[in-house]
């Protein structure tokens, strides 16, 4: 194997050789540069491969033929090889990316680039602190040179500010080095480790040394200089500055910190966390893409520093965790800077142009997911391990702060993604330099590869080998096919997956499995209506279904959490497709990720450091921590079921989604939360916190969700919003049933799971079909469609009969079980609330029939046809199912009833023939069907008989008698239909929850706006920041140690 010192030799040698070339041989000079960088990369990667596979051992390279400390030594271990690979590869790709700029500036700029990469590699390799100083100064000088590659004249100012600040830093560094030397008698880092520093009274010297290295990490607030460089430098260089320089500087800090002993780690944690949180908050107010990326870079490096601060408890996992975050950051940030280089304008909305080039959108999403640590990227595994270690050692506060910071980061990054996807894009497709685009794709592929490697290294299953996820990602490769072919494949995939796995399901998994897979396949039938290629629909949809498929078979907390995040991301992209979905998709993602982090924290608490934890082992969690685990997991699951307080994302997300997406995210996706609740209550049962029974709290949440969700639904004018609000209420019922913690309550919840899937999918499809034909979702703009859209009418009719729980359809079965269940429960007040919400549901459901299908036909709707065939087909399947399920509810519920019986001692239902008996009475679906059918027929015949007396009323004879009103809707009888109720009950619907979350968001934004004024843009102010930072930290460090 080639010695790693050749990384430095080749870099330096090629840089000098460039000086000998003729200035006009630019192609030759560029080829030489690329060749040198390729050799440097190759050496690094071959070391990485050899060390990772065990073929080589960590090696010390002696210079001058003398043992250290009498000469400088370099070291290549696994960490060094990995970081060298990051640095040299970034250099190689960036050089390719910078080709035009380098060719224009000539060979000198290429030499400077080589020196930069060589210096960064040297920082990683060297074990001598003075040598470290030399490499740092080389980095400074080469950075100063490369900043000038930019076309932006402001970069010159930024570069000068950088030099001013680095002068201050190098003074600190040199003074720190010489006094450390004085105290230690050596410049070699390994000699420090042998003799703890504090013991020799050299604390201040070490502090200065450490501060100088930390300042290179651009800690908040001493980092204005770095932000200015990020904003103005050439993005090809910013990629190096963020990915490579950041990596090298972090490693230098880590090397020195490792010698200082555990007492310095809290300081690193503090600086890291402070930087991570503050920079993420400040980034909220950025509308310049490169500056935003700068803030994010600074924050990520802060996070790595905070992880370094935990190295005393991470043990041999330290490299895996810190490395995972660092590599994810490096690849993602380099990739994002490279993308920013092909975009001409700097505001965030300029990224809409990426839409004209879909593979770049995939790359963009890849990089964002990597930064946030979503599966299957390295940061995800790192986050999981980190959380478990932190919780095991009682550092929950550190974890909570990290998660808050990560959530804020997700907020601004995905807001940006939303802007890029939803805002108006330019028409003309820009021409990109092929080299630049190639570099971006290379980074994205490296990111996926790193995810694969990290998965293989983890102690869990590699997510990128999970069959459902692979299938979902496979849809990225067949995006070019027509939508209908992809639809067939998607339906087949869901059915095959169900076929392969249903044998091992228990009855609970079976019900959810049927809903997720077969139910999903039925909804996909509606997608046959779409023609063309329908780009960007199938990968996210299949990602969501992959997450759901992985969720029900998950046996360990890791598999469950991974599946949860996968389905969250998939559904986010899916919801984002709606025309006006931009804010709602973001709000959905924020609540879901917040919930996911709560789940992560809950699982980590439950595991108590003994991961992997089997889901079933949640039952073994006892002691003071158990109720907290319960609370965190319940909150996580309730973000998905949109329990009241966490519901504000749902109406917009479901209503604005496309016609076939609404049933997916409502009928199918909401059940994931219920599945989680089932597992939670099944394993952990009743938990008490401060003497309060937590299931009782859930009972109240369920009841309030049912009441308020339904109340909000009755005042909607938009039919899809109405259905969306009604979901909040329906999920409230299910939660209520679960929280009753008795046999029938659970059975009722399961009945709701099935029913809600069917009727909500049915109603969303029929309303979606009507909206497609009429071009509006406002009910008062419709009317009299019964004759034109008879099938849709039948679907809605059956749907609302089921949903309102009146006989004879299966909704009544749900009600019947519910009434039996509450007979045995003892929580009276929430029960009254749930009772009340029943009739309220009827108020809004009846409007769907009354306002859309009855009444006067609108003039502009006279030519309408019924909804498209493919949208009607699944509706008719649902109608048939509902009729069948009404007569034979036992086919699904019987086995489940027995299954639930294993968890409760009390009597379930008895199923004899077609009659179901409880201790309070019996329910015979067939008899009910016959009775209701008879009454219906009689009434119908009576009405027909009376029909000849009816008088036809001419349209417009009342409403428009005298004038044409200015706002037609105000005179429409169906507009603001329940105004009197609103007057009476409106106070209940004051948007308190919306205001609450809005206030939090605003407070964060205001803080950001206020704080970022700190960066005045004046180089001297920045230098003062650096000095003040050091002095304040000296005082703080005194306090900590």
């Amino acid at each position: 194997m080639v010695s790693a010192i050749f990384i430095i030799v080749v870099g330096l040698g090629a840089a000098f050789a460039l000086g000998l070339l003729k200035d006009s041989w630019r192609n030759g000079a560029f080829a030489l540069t690329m060749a040198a960088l390729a050799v440097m990369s190759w050496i690094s990667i071959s070391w990485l491969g050899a060390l990772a596979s065990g073929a080589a051992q960590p090696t010390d390279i002696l210079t001058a033929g003398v043992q250290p400390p009498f000469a400088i030594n370099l070291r290549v271990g696994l960490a060094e090889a990995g970081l060298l690979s990051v640095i040299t590869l970034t250099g190689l790709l960036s050089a390719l990316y910078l080709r035009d700029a380098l060719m224009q500036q000539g060979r000198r700029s290429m030499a400077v680039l080589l020196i930069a990469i060589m210096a960064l590699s040297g920082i990683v390799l060297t074990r001598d602190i003075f040598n470290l100083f030399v490499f740092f100064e080389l980095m400074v000088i080469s950075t100063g040179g490369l900043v000038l590659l930019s076309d932006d004249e402001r970069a010159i100012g930024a570069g000068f500010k950088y030099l001013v600040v680095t002068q201050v830093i190098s003074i600190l560094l040199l003074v720190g080095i010489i006094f450390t030397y004085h105290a230690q008698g050596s410049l070699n880092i390994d000699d420090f480790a042998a003799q703890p520093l504090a013991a020799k009274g050299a604390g201040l010297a070490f502090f200065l040394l450490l501060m100088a290295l930390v300042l290179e990490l651009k800690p908040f607030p001493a980092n204005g200089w770095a932000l200015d460089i990020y904003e103005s430098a050439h993005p090809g260089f910013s990629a190096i500055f963020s990915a490579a320089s950041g990596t090298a500087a972090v490693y230098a800090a880590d090397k020195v910190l490792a010698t200082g002993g555990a007492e310095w780690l809290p300081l690193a944690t503090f600086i890291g966390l402070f930087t991570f949180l503050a920079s993420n908050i400040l980034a909220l107010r950025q509308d310049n893409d490169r500056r935003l990326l700068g803030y994010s870079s600074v924050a990520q490096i802060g996070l790595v520093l905070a992880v370094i601060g935990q190295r005393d408890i991470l043990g041999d996992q330290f490299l895996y965790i810190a490395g995972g975050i660092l590599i994810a950051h490096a690849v993602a940030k380099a990739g994002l800077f490279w993308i920013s280089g092909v975009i001409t304008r700097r505001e965030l909305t300029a990224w809409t142009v990426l839409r004209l080039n879909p593979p770049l959108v995939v790359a963009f999403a890849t990089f964002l997911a990597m930064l946030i640590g979503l599966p299957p990227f390295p940061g995800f595994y790192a986050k999981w391990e980190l959380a478990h270690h932190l919780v095991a050692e009682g550092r929950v506060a550190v974890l909570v702060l990290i998660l808050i910071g990560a959530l804020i980061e997700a907020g601004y990054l995905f807001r940006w993604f939303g802007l890029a996807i939803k805002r108006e894009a330019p028409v003309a497709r820009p021409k990109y330099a092929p080299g630049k685009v190639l570099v971006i794709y290379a980074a994205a592929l490296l990111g996926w590869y790193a995810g694969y490697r990290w998965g293989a290294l983890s102690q869990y299953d590699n997510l990128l080998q999970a069959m459902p996820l692979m299938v979902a990602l496979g849809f990225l490769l067949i995006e070019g096919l027509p939508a209908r072919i992809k639809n067939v494949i998607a339906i087949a995939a869901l059915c095959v997956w169900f076929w392969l796995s249903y044998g091992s399901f228990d009855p609970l998994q079976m019900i959810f499995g049927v809903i997720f897979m077969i139910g999903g396949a039925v909804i996909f039938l509606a997608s046959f209506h779409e023609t063309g290629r329908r780009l960007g629909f199938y990968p996210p949809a299949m990602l969501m279904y992959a997450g759901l498929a992985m969720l029900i078979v998950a046996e360990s907390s890791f598999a469950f959490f991974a599946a949860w995040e996968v389905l969250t991301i998939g559904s986010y992209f899916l919801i984002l497709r709606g025309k006006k979905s931009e804010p709602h998709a973001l709000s959905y993602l924020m609540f879901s990720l917040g919930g996911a982090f709560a789940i992560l924290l809950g699982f980590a608490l439950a595991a108590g450091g003994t991961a992997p934890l089997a889901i079933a082992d949640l039952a073994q969690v006892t002691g003071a921590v158990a109720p907290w685990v319960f609370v965190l997991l319940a909150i996580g699951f309730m973000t998905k079921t949109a329990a009241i307080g966490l519901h504000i994302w749902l109406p917009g997300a479901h209503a604005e989604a496309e016609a076939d997406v609404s049933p997916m995210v409502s009928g199918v996706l909401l059940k994931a939360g219920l599945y989680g609740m089932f597992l939670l209550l099944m394993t952990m049962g009743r938990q008490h916190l401060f003497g309060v029974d937590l299931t009782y709290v859930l009972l109240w949440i369920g009841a309030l969700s049912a009441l308020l969700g339904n109340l909000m639904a009755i005042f909607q004018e938009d039919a899809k919003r109405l259905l969306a609000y009604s979901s909040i209420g329906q999920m409230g019922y299910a939660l209520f049933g679960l929280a009753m913690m008795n046999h029938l309550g659970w059975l009722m919840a399961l009945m709701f799971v099935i029913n809600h899937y069917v009727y909500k999918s049915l109603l969303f499809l029929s309303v979606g079909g009507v909206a497609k034909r009429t071009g509006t979702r406002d009910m008062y703009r419709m009317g009299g469609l019964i004759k034109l859209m008879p099938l849709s009418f039948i679907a809605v009719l059956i749907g609302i009969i089921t949903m309102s729980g009146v006989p004879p359809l299966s909704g009544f079965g749900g009600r019947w079980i519910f009434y039996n269940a509450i007979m045995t429960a003892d929580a009276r007040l929430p029960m009254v609330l749930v009772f009340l919400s029943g009739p309220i549901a009827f108020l809004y459901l009846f409007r769907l029939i009354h306002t859309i299908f009855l009444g006067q036909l609108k003039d502009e709707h006279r030519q309408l046809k019924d909804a498209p065939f493919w949208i009607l087909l699944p509706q008719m399947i649902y109608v048939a199912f509902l009729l069948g399920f009404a007569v034979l509810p036992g086919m699904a519920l019987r086995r489940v009833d027995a299954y639930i019986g294993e968890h409760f001692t009390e009597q379930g239902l008895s199923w004899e023939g077609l009659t179901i008996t409880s201790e309070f009475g019996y329910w015979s679906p067939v008899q009910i069907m016959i009775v209701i059918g008879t009454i219906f027929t009689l009434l119908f015949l009576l009405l027909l008989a009376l029909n000849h007396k009816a008088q036809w009323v001419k349209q417009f004879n009342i409403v428009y008698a005298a004038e044409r009103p200015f706002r037609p809707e105000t005179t429409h009888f169906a507009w603001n239909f329940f105004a009197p109720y609103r007057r009476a009950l409106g106070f209940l619907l004051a948007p308190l929850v919306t205001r609450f979350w809005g206030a939090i968001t605003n407070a964060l934004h205001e803080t950001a706006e206020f704080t970022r004024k700190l960066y005045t843009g004046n180089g001297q102010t920045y230098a003062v920041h650096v000095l003040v930072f050091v002095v304040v930290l000296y005082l703080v460090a005194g306090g900590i140690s």
Partner: protein
Amino acid sequence: MITIAMTTGFVLILIGLYGALTNTNILRMIVSFTIASTGVNVVLVSVGYMPGRTAPILDDAVPVGSATTSIIDPIPQALVLTAIVIGLGVTALMLAYAYRLFRIRQTLDISKIVELKW
């Protein structure tokens, strides 16, 4: 002797920093930083100084055998030489920047170069 040298060094550093932070003229800042780095070099040298010994140059006057007892610590000397060279490089780069800044902005006042902020 060591104390005097070291104190002088630190005073120079402080003077340099003070000058760099209070003068808004870029050239004056550069000069101030040069003073500060001179101060750093003095501190470096003074740390390695030992009273009564001679320069760490092995020649006829200092035979190899007795070198360990008769010369001062050579390491700080070597460090200072390197630091001076690097300081020169950085100063040259800053001057080049000053020149380019003046070319495009017609000013050397650093408080006027604040278009990148927040």
